């Protein structure tokens, strides 16, 4: 075991898989000599050589498009897009090729690649650095979409993503890259994609979140516990495929649902979770499924960030509203 923060767990997962499988390679802008703007790939070039960890020109479409060719050619590329807002430039490659090549070729050609990119705001960064695009990737089809919220999960999910035979978008909550440490096994372990994690059991309300927002959600659960309320906290971990089973089982038990995410409300992931709940647990619902999400605005620059981020007190308040609802 070593005590790692989330970004170190990412580095660790990359190193462990590069060590185990010579087909794994890591590239993107500034990931080589500099070790990444968040230092997620630090040390990899020294250890595995320039052929397996290298810098690319400023070319997001190029990075993803070349990775597709490499993957078809038998490699397992793990690419970094420096900030998620810049993945838009790679959407053509991602949606029209990476996601589709298995189906297009009826299973004869596959694209086992991982696209890593930071997720979410709260880091006082310039424009385009704080995007939450999970619902876009989730709706694209043919992509798995993963967001860890702890160092342990980050390592296990990233290893699973690298080993997955299909393309995976791996979103890393930048705000909590270094905020907590956790004991993480030194060896490789994979956490199955597509499984949500019930982080705390509870009986009165199902609280669903993921990524950096889990930190506030945990705090809200504590605040509510202090007030004597029993909340079941679920970390979604995988956006696509959504683990409706776990969600529905929980809502059937608690009868109430609150989904919290930083991404904008309209057409966001919360709507899908709510839909899954009404489809699977309608007769158990004691209150309207609710969401507390980012509004349909762009993440403000540093001085407006406080208007945008969701704090634990807001979650607590909203949870109390849902708990207070009487049919």
């Amino acid at each position, binding site marked *: 075991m070593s005590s790692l923060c989330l970004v170190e767990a990412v580095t660790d997962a990359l190193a462990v898989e590069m060590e185990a499988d010579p087909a794994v390679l890591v590239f993107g802008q500034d990931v080589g000599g500099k070790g990444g703007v968040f230092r997620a790939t630090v040390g990899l070039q020294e250890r595995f050589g320039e052929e397996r960890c290298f810098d690319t020109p400023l*070319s997001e479409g*190029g990075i993803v498009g070349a990775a597709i*060719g490499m993957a078809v050619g038998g490699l397992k590329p793990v690419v970094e897009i420096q900030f998620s807002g810049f993945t838009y430039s790679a959407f053509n490659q991602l949606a029209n090729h990476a996601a589709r090549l298995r189906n*297009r070729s*009826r299973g*004869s050609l596959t694209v086992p690649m991982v696209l890593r990119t930071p997720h979410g705001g709260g880091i006082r960064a310039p424009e385009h650095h704080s995007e939450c695009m999970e619902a876009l990737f989730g709706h694209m089809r043919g992509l798995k979409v993963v967001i860890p919220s702890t160092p342990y999960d980050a390592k296990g999910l990233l290893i699973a993503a690298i080993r997955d035979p299909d393309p995976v978008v791996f979103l890393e909550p930048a705000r909590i890259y270094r905020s907590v440490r956790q004991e993480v096994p030194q060896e490789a372990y994979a956490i199955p994609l597509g499984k949500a994690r019930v982080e705390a059991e509870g009986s009165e309300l199902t609280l669903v979140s993921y990524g950096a927002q889990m930190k506030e959600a945990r705090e809200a659960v504590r605040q509510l516990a202090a007030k004597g309320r029993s909340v079941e906290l679920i970390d979604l971990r995988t956006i696509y495929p959504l683990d409706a089973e776990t969600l529905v089982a929980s809502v059937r038990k608690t009868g109430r649902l609150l989904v919290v995410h930083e991404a904008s409300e309209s057409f966001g992931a919360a709507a899908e979770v709510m839909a899954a709940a009404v489809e699977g647990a309608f007769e158990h619902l004691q209150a309207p499924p609710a969401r507390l999400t980012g509004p349909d605005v762009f993440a403000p620059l540093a001085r407006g960030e406080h208007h945008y981020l969701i704090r634990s007190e807001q979650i607590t308040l909203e949870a109390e509203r849902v708990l207070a609802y009487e049919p």
Partner: protein
Amino acid sequence: MFQAYDPREGKRLSLLNPEGCLADCVSALPRPSDEEVLEAYRVMVLARQADEWAVNLNRQGRMPTYVLNEGQEANSAGALLALRPDDWFVPAYRELAGMIMRGLPLHQIYLYWHGNELGSHLPRETYHMLPISVPVGSQPLHAVGLAYAERLRGSDRVVIAFMGEGATSEGDWHEALNLAGVWKSGVIFFTQNNQWAISLPAGKQTASATVAEKAFAYGFEGVQVDGNDLFAVYAAVRQAADKARAGGGPTLIEGYTYRLGAHTTSDDPRHYRVDSEVERWRALDPLLRLERYLRLRGLLRKKDVQDIKQKCLARAQAEFEQAERLNDPSLEDTFRFMFHELPQPLARQLERRRP
């Protein structure tokens, strides 16, 4: 390597003239054997007949949108002839002759155009080829990635990627050439400049005089060849492949050619171009030219020409019927190739749709 044909000086590599005579300088260049030329000729005739039959089928309502390679056959046939069967082939969609040359059965290609994804089932080690793919300009990046994978494992396979001149306007095309330049990728970028991108003439696609000269912006060589000349295409591709195999990096080859037919069977070129232009290019037909060459060299008799044509037509008809007879994809087929394993949401959705 291609200094003698610098496109910036208005030069074009051309070996076989419209009368079927080979230029002298051919002796200094790689050149296919007589058997290979005959094979290429047969492939090109089949590709031409396959096109004509497909247009016919489309009129009968038996074929959805189909893309023709009529008039451009020498480009992809010559290129694939110059490569090894295990060199990667990344087509756009107008490389029928090349696909046949690569050994892909015609019924499978027809199956694709007929609207069955199974036509694109191309086991990696059988064909070393990617399926036809529609978003123009996006495929060359895959070629760059393939070349990287081959080099990393120490193989000397090279990669050829095709695209139209229209595709060169796309951002992904630029990114592919730039990466290839930086990585010294073993890739041949082959642009079939057929003068038109649907209704847009090449002169409005870009302000550069040639496509070939764009290569220099990426730090490697570009060369323009007569794309209706099998020998010129062969010589250029073979040299580019040798260079790439030796670690010399990428080459951009512009096959200067012409789309004799419609863009696709859904298109009517009379909306945007004049017949006289088409007629001018008909005289430069690559098939006619090759035929003349083979006749002059005594490798083909007049009678053979008709014979080959008829056999090819018959074959096209038979192969289409084979494709048409095949079962439609099942409901399951539309689901099961989305991922290696069917994930929860898809399994649920499939269950719900089962009759």
